[in-house]
């Protein structure tokens, strides 16, 4: 009751808020409001979106996907390629096929203290990354994927990779470290490096940063101040100061925006879609509000060990029974596109032509009848053994948007004679335990995030089903097994010839659509609220933050 009262009062008060111009900060300063505060500052110790958003202003990866979802060089001079001779398939000593790729560091690249970025830094980064005690979570890249690195000179180096993968040019996660600052700390005691790194003990040291901005002040849990990096080699950034404030409560963040204490709220880690839709209706004329659909794939994960869901006819019926177009229109104002497959239509590897499942209650009923769930008692379907078609659906407790969607799904499935019980859990329990140990009985509603052209091996390959034997590794929570899909996923890694590669992607999407290991719902859209005076912000819609191009952001003349 109190929550309802508060929501009503907030809505009324916000609606009544002044309609004049917000009190803009000086235009040489930009204040960004986010709902999270980065917990640490080391670029490779535990990934989180808020940290990535801030660090992308102060660092550059060798490669990244740009806003057009094309792989691009940010710290290197040119992407390696087989036809240019900068990439070459090689046979390793053990007879396996690997690949070597050569990169050249931008010759103007220097750390914030003026020290050049060199291959010394590359080699040191690899040493840290592959050390079993360093605490790196993406250990695989450093210790298994990269088998050797040769430094040709101060700027050019060759990475030897374990497999001749098609994605050989991408080293987005190879986050370079400044050897001149971090080497002594690491070598003193590799086992405690994760706690003693200068990123944690001396965060404002200019030598740690090499982006257009550097971190100049940190008030833990409150804000971060970034100032232009005098040694940045690219286009001069426009703002004298960028302040990133953390305001976790979304209503308070919205109030800060209206009070002019925050200039913009990014889509990467800002306000939920439903709140921005309401905000836009009330205050849209004063801000530039836009929505970027991306690679957050909202879906219903199915446990295929559930006898009812093991039948593909039931899975197809469940999808035919949902009116996703109506949901998108009613709940998301049409801003969140319906997903028909796990691969986004915005992705270069998307291949239309796979089966889709429109809202069709008659067809859903027919499929359920065929699957043996033909007898309706008190509105619920039963099979010949007298078992009810009763399923559970879980999601993250407290996520208002998902909880509403869950209730709509429950109601629509009820129309089809499927009884669905809602059993929600806090995110830490759902993701940290229930899904990982495959303890969900039938269905779970959540999102996968991926990068462009990402092969969904960990989600769809049968070897990625978490079990006690493999220490619950992998993300194939659904328990999907299809040898044909396994083969496609394996081939996609090394069949790089364009035609054959395209055919494999098409096959993957067709197999997915036929088998429906999960139920695709929507591609989530990131909502951005920007002040009208700001230009140059281009959302990416994927894991690489828009701040990787912050030097193009400026106040309108």
């Amino acid at each position, binding site marked *: 009751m*109190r929550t309802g*009262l*508060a929501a009503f*009062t*907030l809505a009324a*008060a*916000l609606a009544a*808020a*002044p309609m004049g111009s917000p*009190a803009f900060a000086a235009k040489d300063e930009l204040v960004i409001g986010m709902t999270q*505060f980065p*917990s*640490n500052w080391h670029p490779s110790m*535990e*990934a*989180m979106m808020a940290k990535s958003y801030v660090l992308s202003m102060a660092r550059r990866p060798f490669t990244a996907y740009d806003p057009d979802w094309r792989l691009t060089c940010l710290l290197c001079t040119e992407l390696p390629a087989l036809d240019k001779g900068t990439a070459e398939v090689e046979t390793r000593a053990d007879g396996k096929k690997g690949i070597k790729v050569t990169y050249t560091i931008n010759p103007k690249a220097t750390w914030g203290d003026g020290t050049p970025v060199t291959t010394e830094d590359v080699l040191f980064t690899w040493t840290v990354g592959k050390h*079993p005690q360093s*605490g790196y*979570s*993406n*250990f*695989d*890249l450093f210790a298994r994927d990269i088998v050797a690195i040769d430094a040709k000179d101060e700027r050019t180096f060759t990475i030897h990779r374990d497999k001749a993968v098609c994605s050989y040019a991408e080293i987005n996660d190879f986050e370079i470290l400044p050897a001149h600052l971090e080497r002594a700390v690491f070598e003193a005691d590799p*086992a405690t490096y*994760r*706690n003693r*790194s200068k990123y*944690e*003990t001396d965060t404002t040291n200019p030598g740690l940063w090499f982006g257009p901005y550097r971190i100049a*002040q940190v*008030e*833990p*849990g*409150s*804000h971060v*101040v970034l100032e232009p990096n005098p040694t940045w080699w690219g286009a001069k950034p426009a703002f004298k*100061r960028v302040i990133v404030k*953390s*305001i*976790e*409560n979304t*209503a*308070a963040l919205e*109030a*800060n925006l209206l*009070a002019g*204490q925050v200039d913009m709220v990014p889509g990467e880690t800002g306000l939920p879609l439903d709140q921005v839709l309401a905000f836009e209706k009330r205050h849209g004329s004063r801000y530039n509000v836009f929505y970027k659909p991306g690679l957050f794939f909202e879906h219903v994960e199915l446990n295929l060990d559930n006898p009812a869901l093991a039948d593909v006819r039931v899975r197809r019926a469940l999808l035919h029974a949902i009116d996703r177009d109506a949901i998108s229109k009613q709940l998301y104002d049409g801003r969140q596109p319906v997903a028909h497959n796990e691969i986004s239509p915005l992705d270069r590897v998307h291949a239309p032509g796979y089966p889709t499942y429109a809202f069709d209650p008659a067809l859903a009923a027919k499929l359920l009848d065929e699957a043996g769930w033909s007898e309706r008692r008190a509105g619920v379907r039963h099979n010949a053994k007298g078992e009810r078609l009763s399923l559970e659906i879980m999601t993250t407790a407290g996520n208002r948007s998902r909880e509403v969607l869950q209730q709509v799904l429950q109601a629509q499935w009820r129309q089809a004679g499927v009884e669905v019980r809602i059993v929600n859990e806090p995110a*830490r*329990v759902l*993701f*940290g*335990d229930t899904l*990982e140990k495959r303890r969900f009985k039938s269905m779970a509603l959540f999102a996968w*995030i991926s990068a462009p052209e990402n092969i969904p*091996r*960990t989600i769809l390959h049968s070897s990625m089903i978490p079990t006690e034997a*493999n*220490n*619950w*590794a992998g993300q194939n929570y659904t328990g999907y097994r299809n040898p044909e899909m396994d083969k496609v996923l394996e081939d996609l890694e090394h069949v790089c010839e364009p035609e054959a590669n395209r055919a494999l992607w098409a096959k993957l999407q067709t197999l997915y659509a036929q088998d429906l290991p999960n139920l695709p719902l929507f591609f989530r859209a990131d909502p951005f609220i920007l002040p009208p005076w700001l230009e140059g912000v281009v959302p990416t819609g994927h894991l690489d933050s828009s701040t990787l191009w912050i030097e193009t952001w400026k106040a309108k003349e």
Partner: protein
Amino acid sequence: MTRFLASRLLQALVVLLLMSFVITVLMTLMPGDPVDMMLAGNPRATPADAARLKALYGLDKPLLERYGHWLQAALVGDFGFSRLYAQPVLTILLPRLGNTLLLLGAAMALTLAVALPLGVYAARRPYGWADNAINLFCFAGISVPAFWLALLLILLFAVELQWLPASGLGPVGGEGWWERLPYLVLPVASLTLASIGGYTRYVRAAMMGELRQDYVRTARAKGLGEGRVVWRHALRNATIPIVTIVALEFGALFSGALVTETMFAWPGMGKLIYDSIMGNDLNVALVALLFATLTTLAGNLLADATYAGLDPRISFKGDGA
């Protein structure tokens, strides 16, 4: 008095020791492995990676062994590192403790400064229009949810009137206390308005009890001025139960401040405790919760010690037995 203090300190140490063990057990029983949570966003992590990280963080060891190591280190002042923040626990905790103490201290001082005179005034004229008005104000304060009040204050004073900042500790780059003062106004007002009601009711009830006592009648009969009778004699005795409540409340406020800290983006202890529990950051959660326990115990001790100062009839002689 010395024996009393020594005995209470010993009791406090035992309580803290027990609490540290109970918190460790409870945190271990909570679902969700910290390393699995850490790797949840990394599809490339393998079972070998998970095992390596669990060994690195000592999570592969039995509970008692882990607790033993922590206790050994804690006894020499090493409270370990935060798994989430990659920093020593005290480095994270102490600034936040300072922020919370500033917020709660200011709110408590303001609450008492308002509630004491208001409660005394209401007690001296019970059931009159002023008492009824004060009661109405008190019940309104008690009934209003903290987050709702905080939002209203932000909307009125920050969004509508733009007189005060909506959130944060102070202006970016501003270190002087006068620059930070405006940032303290709304969170303190939010906490104060919510707690004035309760304290005023306590003061009113205690004062009404004292004003009916024989010693008050005697003092009046002796010709002492009404001000002296009320403020020097009755209030002194009425303060004893109030001191107990203030002292006990202070410990509970650490977690109670969570809503205010979240609404005003005030990086304090309440928020830290919540985040460390949700993030399965055992070392931080453990020390933060022990601090909250310690504050409650210290409050209790302070209340007992203050009794003696306020009421000479109370003595701690022989209490150590």
